[in-house]
């Protein structure tokens, strides 16, 4: 194939097929290059200016998130954010979406998503210690959805289990809207000593650019723009941007990079992974951060295939590759170091002072463009939003009223709903225990991983109830943060920071943009109140199939610092005779709830305003009560309301309860956010009640009996614990058969 000339690209507007607009192309020609770009150059601009790399549609919205705080050591802009956890230690984390690749090749798409997020963590010099994932699928009654769910979960497990990082938590939900566009978000958490932190910078004239890891092939070319593309039935068959992950190679790469940073920190200036848009994005960003230029010699790049063009080499998204910026005097040591680890390492270029990005192949200069133009000068779009029509319909303010003719029947039925039922069938396929640090395993509100050699632990969770964001983006966004925070608090941990994946439809559509913007405003408002910085994240837009967007689906990944292992708390009741309390006031919150979905097959109606000050106060009190040793178990109340929270608290240790509440049989299913279900040892009741004089209700006691006894103000139910447990545990395995 001969490449089109610069003139052809211009005249036939070939750049459009790569996602560059006419206006953008004009900026490149007139403002940046003052000439026409050749084929390679146009290709580089098209990926670097894609939404995935440049955030041109979302930057403006993302600025609404607070990202500073006294513990923040690195925020957005690096491969991952870093939060100080005292004693010269820090936690590093980030989340990444792989929705489109997973729709096309579910196993490999999910697996390479995991591989990518792990590289983001160890490229900061950190040791990955845990992974989480957030998955959203269509309904499990659909065969294709079952196939996607099985393969995606297998891909996540396959990669994580092989590389040996425990996958400790996450969330899985089901809704028709994700049928053809599943959401696959993966998060990785790492630990680092503050003195080992490395940034992705290509600094210092004549320093070397070294390529490490797998060879470059023609796979995944244009993956970055692919990720920013909508799906239709049409291009379902034209899909080509699929890569195969090699977790074995990544394990070698990870161990070597961590050892390099810990033992030979002086050899290198910076290190970065090759993620989306491969070689070009990693090297250009490293140069941009250091305000340097670069020269690359493509003949040196290890290649798996023959006759690759500069365009292909630069844009390839072959996996398991890293770039280093290193001091020339250590060249031989570095190459030997990697070779001994069974890895390719070659010098492919060097840092220059002229701030130009120059690429040579076969001795010929094939690209010569300003680094800043490529990385920083991408346009930024501020879209006009428009309130979605569904939110403007008449009676949208009205609350749904659940129909509860039989309390026990509704209760049992709800426990079977896939969104509520146990997800063990899936998470059991993840090795959650490797490294022997997992103190609270999947199945409670948050997972807790100890920091070996200290009394500290880290709690982590993924949350984002997209049904609520869909019915009311602002309040739904607020609830996403509140819930994540509540999950950590309930585990006895103090939330310290957030990463996110923002999964939405096409932002060029005013209604989609409005959802995006409003939900971020909602989330940001809670981040401000709870003083939680957003230190990293990822945006995945254009999640549409045949023009229909997924639900607005922000995923919140939150990490908490547990000061002492004694504070670790789980959701399950512990002892016969413990007193049970509900903390927080219950209101009529049925819109967007599981009971609304179960009873009507749909979710709609706006959400009630939230009293953030009250929520903050309750969360603070709960954490204090846990730290004071007053609480035996703690569970945040969310999907399915108090009824489901009570049942889940009973399941963990198979203890029954006797509860009598002032709530009605309808209110027991209300999903008012910010509430906690707590159990307290009998002899600590007084001390506990004193801490929470107002906003609590005494519900009853935990019992050894295998029965869930619940009396509401207008009905009662006696449910066999084992029957309830069976409904909850077997619903998903049964659907997956």
């Amino acid at each position, binding site marked *: 194939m001969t490449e089109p000339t610069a003139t052809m690209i211009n005249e036939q507007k070939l750049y459009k097929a790569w996602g560059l607009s006419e206006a953008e192309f004009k900026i490149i020609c007139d403002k940046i290059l003052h000439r026409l770009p050749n084929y390679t150059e146009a290709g580089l601009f098209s990926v670097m200016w894609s939404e995935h790399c440049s955030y041109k549609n979302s930057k403006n919205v993302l600025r609404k998130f607070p990202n500073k705080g006294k513990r923040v050591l690195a925020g957005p802009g690096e491969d991952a954010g870093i939060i100080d956890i005292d004693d010269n230690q820090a936690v590093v984390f980030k989340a990444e979406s792989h929705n489109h690749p997973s729709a096309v090749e579910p196993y490999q798409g999910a697996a390479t998503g995991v591989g990518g997020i792990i590289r983001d963590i160890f490229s900061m010099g950190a040791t990955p210690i845990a992974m989480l994932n957030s998955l959203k699928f269509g309904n499990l009654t659909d065969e294709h959805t079952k196939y996607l769910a099985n393969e995606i979960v297998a891909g996540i497990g396959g990669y994580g289990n092989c590389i040996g990082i425990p996958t400790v938590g996450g969330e899985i939900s089901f809704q028709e809207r994700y049928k053809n566009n599943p959401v696959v978000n993966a998060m990785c958490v790492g630990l680092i000593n503050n003195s080992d932190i490395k940034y992705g910078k290509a600094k210092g004239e004549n320093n070397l650019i070294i390529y490490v890891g797998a060879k470059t*092939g*023609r796979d995944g070319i244009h993956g970055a723009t692919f990720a920013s593309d909508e799906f239709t039935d049409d291009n379902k068959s034209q899909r080509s941007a699929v*890569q195969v992950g090699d977790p*074995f*190679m990544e394990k070698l790469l990870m161990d070597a990079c961590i050892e390099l940073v810990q033992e030979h920190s002086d050899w290198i200036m910076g290190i970065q992974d090759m993620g989306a848009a491969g070689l070009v994005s990693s090297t250009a960003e490293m140069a941009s951060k250091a305000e340097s230029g670069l020269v690359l010699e493509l003949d040196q790049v290890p290649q798996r295939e023959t006759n690759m063009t500069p365009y292909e080499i630069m844009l390839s998204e*072959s*996996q398991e590759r890293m770039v280093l910026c290193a001091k020339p005097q250590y060249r031989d040591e570095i190459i030997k170091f990697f070779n001994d680890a069974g890895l390719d390492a070659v010098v492919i270029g060097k840092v220059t002072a002229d701030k130009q990005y120059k690429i040579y192949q076969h001795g010929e200069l094939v690209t010569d463009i300003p680094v800043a133009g490529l990385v920083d000068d991408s346009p930024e779009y501020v879209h006009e939003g428009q309130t979605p029509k569904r939110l403007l319909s008449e009676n949208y303010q009205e609350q749904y009223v659940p129909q509860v003719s039989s309390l026990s029947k509704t209760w049992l039925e709800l426990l079977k709903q896939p969104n509520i039922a146990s997800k063990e069938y899936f998470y059991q396929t993840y090795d959650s225990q490797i490294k022997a640090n997992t103190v609270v395993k999947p199945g409670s509100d948050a997972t807790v991983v100890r920091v070996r050699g200290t009394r500290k632990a880290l709690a982590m969770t993924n949350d984002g109830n997209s049904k609520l964001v869909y019915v009311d983006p602002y309040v739904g966004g607020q609830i996403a943060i509140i819930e994540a925070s509540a999950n950590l608090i309930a585990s006895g941990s103090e939330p310290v920071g957030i990463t996110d994946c923002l999964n939405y439809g096409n932002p060029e559509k005013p209604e989609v943009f409005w959802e995006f913007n409003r939900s971020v405003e909602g989330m940001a408002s809670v981040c401000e109140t709870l003083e939680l910085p957003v230190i990293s994240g990822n945006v995945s837009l254009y999640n549409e199939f045949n023009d229909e967007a997924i639900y607005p689906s922000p995923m919140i990944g939150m990490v908490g610092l547990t000061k002492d292992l004694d504070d670790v708390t789980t959701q399950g009741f512990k002892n016969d005779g413990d007193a049970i309390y509900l903390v927080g006031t219950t209101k009529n919150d049925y819109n967007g709830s599981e009971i609304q979905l179960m009873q009507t097959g749909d979710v709609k109606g706006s959400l009630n305003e939230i009293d953030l000050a009250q929520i903050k106060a309750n969360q603070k009190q709960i954490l204090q009560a846990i730290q004071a040793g007053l609480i035996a178990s703690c569970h945040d109340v969310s999907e399915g309301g108090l009824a489901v929270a009570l049942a889940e608290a009973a399941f963990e240790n198979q203890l029954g309860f006797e509860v009598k509440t002032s709530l009605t049989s309808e209110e027991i299913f209300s999903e008012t956010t910010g509430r906690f279900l707590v159990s307290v040892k009998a002899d600590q009741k007084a001390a506990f009640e004193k801490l929470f004089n107002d906003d609590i209700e005494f519900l009853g006691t935990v019992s050894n009996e295998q029965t869930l006894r619940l009396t509401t103000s207008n009905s009662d139910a006696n449910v066999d614990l084992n029957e309830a447990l069976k409904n909850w545990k077997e619903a998903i395995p049964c659907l997956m058969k």
Partner: protein
Amino acid sequence: MTLVKVYVTYKKSILDPQGEAVKKAVHGMGFNDVEDIRMGKYFEISVDGDSPTVKEDIETICDQLLANPNMETYRYEFVESEEV
């Protein structure tokens, strides 16, 4: 009874980490003449009766299940077999 053998391999341009690992191991055993190893999947499918659409059926099964056309290619052959 018809026996169908199906071979599924990655497309040439796609990384085959398993094949690579096996090749290295073979070199480690001293067989340096081995230039390349690609690893794929192999299926033996026994089909009952002599449905006239058997060939079509096998192709559908391959296209939709056994191989992912995004990264794999397949090949099949029919072997008449008197017994299972």
